[in-house]
């Protein structure tokens, strides 16, 4: 088990956002978490990565209890994260974005006097190439097209050489074509590097195309978990999704 979440509880001003969630993820597994808007998916991610502190429960990653750790420590243990909103360093170039993450990962961030520009050129270029941004490396990242910014986000997460990736709606806001390309890219990278993947997604075709297991979150609770076909046939899941107009 690479990730174990036990009896996780989080409430905001009396509203139960996460109401006792239990699940585990095996090493190398590709898992999706789905659920209607407001089900608590992003909150769940924020609890796992230490961006929010939990009320109750325990989270174990790679045999280390990360329940009370800050976000920067969790990340150093090898839990990479991308965000639903675009979350990049918008005044820096694409190259500098990736390089900053490589620097940190290699423990060079406390270096005060070496020129930064020549450091880790090769490592940075390798990642730029992997996420298909080598032609845009000198552009200011804030002025990139939306799809490229999402790829950059993924690149920043990969630069940390994570053992497990948590992607929060990696294709949110993308066209059908961009979505397909991004999902292919993620699938390739995950297989190539032997990563474990946990992601949330609203596009059902994406979810069913790459996940090995799907968990359904509804009102802060997991109501189903299993292979895609089994989850699709689950009457309770159908009820939750019928309620939504789509």
């Amino acid at each position, binding site marked *: 088990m690479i990730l174990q979440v036990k009896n996780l509880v989080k409430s905001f001003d009396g509203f139960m956002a996460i109401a006792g969630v239990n699940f585990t993820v095996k090493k190398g597994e590709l898992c999706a978490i789905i659920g209607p808007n407001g089900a608590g998916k992003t909150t769940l991610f924020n609890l796992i990565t230490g961006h929010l502190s939990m009320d109750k429960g325990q989270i174990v990653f790679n045999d280390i209890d990360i329940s009370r750790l800050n*976000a*920067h420590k969790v990340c150093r243990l090898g839990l990479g994260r991308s965000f639903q909103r675009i979350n990049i360093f918008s005044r820096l170039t694409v190259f500098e974005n990736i390089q*900053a993450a490589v620097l940190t990962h290699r423990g060079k961030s406390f270096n005060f006097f070496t*020129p*930064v520009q020549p450091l880790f050129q090769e490592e940075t270029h390798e990642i730029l190439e992997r996420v298909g941004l080598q032609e845009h490396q000198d552009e200011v990242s804030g002025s990139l097209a939306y799809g490229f910014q999402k790829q950059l986000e993924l690149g920043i997460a990969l630069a940390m050489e994570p053992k497990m990736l948590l992607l929060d709606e990696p294709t949110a806001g993308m066209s059908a074509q961009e979505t397909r390309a991004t999902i292919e890219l993620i699938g390739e990278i995950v297989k190539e590097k032997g990563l474990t993947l946990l992601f949330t997604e609203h596009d059902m075709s994406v979810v069913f195309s790459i996940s090995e297991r799907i968990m359904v979150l509804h009102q802060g609770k997991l109501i189903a978990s299993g292979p895609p076909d089994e989850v699709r046939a689950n009457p309770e899941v159908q009820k939750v999704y019928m309620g939504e107009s789509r």
Partner: protein
Amino acid sequence: MSRQNWVLIAVLVLLALVPLTGSRYYVFLLTDVLIFGLFAVSLNLLLGYTGLVSFGQAAYFGIGAYAYALLIKKAGLTFGVAFALTGLSGAAAALIIGFFCVRLTKIYFAMLTLAFSQIVWAIIFKWNSLTGGDTGIYGIDFPEFIGSKTKFYYFTLIVVVVSVFLLRRIVNSPFGRILTTIRDNPERTESIGINVKLFQLLAFIVSGFFSAISGGLFAIFNHSIFPDFCYWPISAEVLIMTLLGGMYSFFGPMVGAGVLLYLRLEVTSYTQYWPFILGSILVLLLFFFPGGIVGFFQDQIKKWRPSK
């Protein structure tokens, strides 16, 4: 060598030649500009590079000035020791104050820096027996080996060049790069494994160190010091210099200090409405030149030379 370094060397040679013209006016003005230029560049490590708006930078400037004066006049230390401790006093104050400030963000951070600088001012103002209270401390002489206005100009030039060189190394280092990621996106920086508050605190300390150095220089330049060195208008003035010159360029604040001090000296000799003129400059700046003077010229150069 890069084009920018050639330009810097040319500017440096020109600055070194200024006293040969025999103009006391320019030696006086440029000493002032160099001192405040260093102060503004050190503030910009927080503002432009780390994205922290400090409204209380005068605290470290004032602490530097008082530390130097007290160490020389009351403790009787030699110049070298006193001047070195001046920088460290600013760094120590920034460590203590910054420890609390980095716990808050945005406007709360800014207000807390202001609050602490007002506390520093109040302590200096009230502690008569040590600081001379409202009257300040008089008779801070040039140390013997730099005992003339010209010699002090060269001394200031050397101290400022070394300090600015170190600051430039820092902003171009991996540490400096991480500061810019914090400026752009603290949350994301946390998620690449950086202890954001620790880095903000370190930037605060470095900035406090160099602000105090500039305060120490100003104490010698001015021969006397007052509690007003720590008062909020000084914090505002150095902030205006930084914005005027351009906070997204390393030398912008230096240019801003030069333009503001020159204008003030010229304008106040014609009219008493300097604050009115300053206000008008600020309005124009904020509406039409958000990148400051240097930012504006950089944009123009980019327009005329689209490829490097």
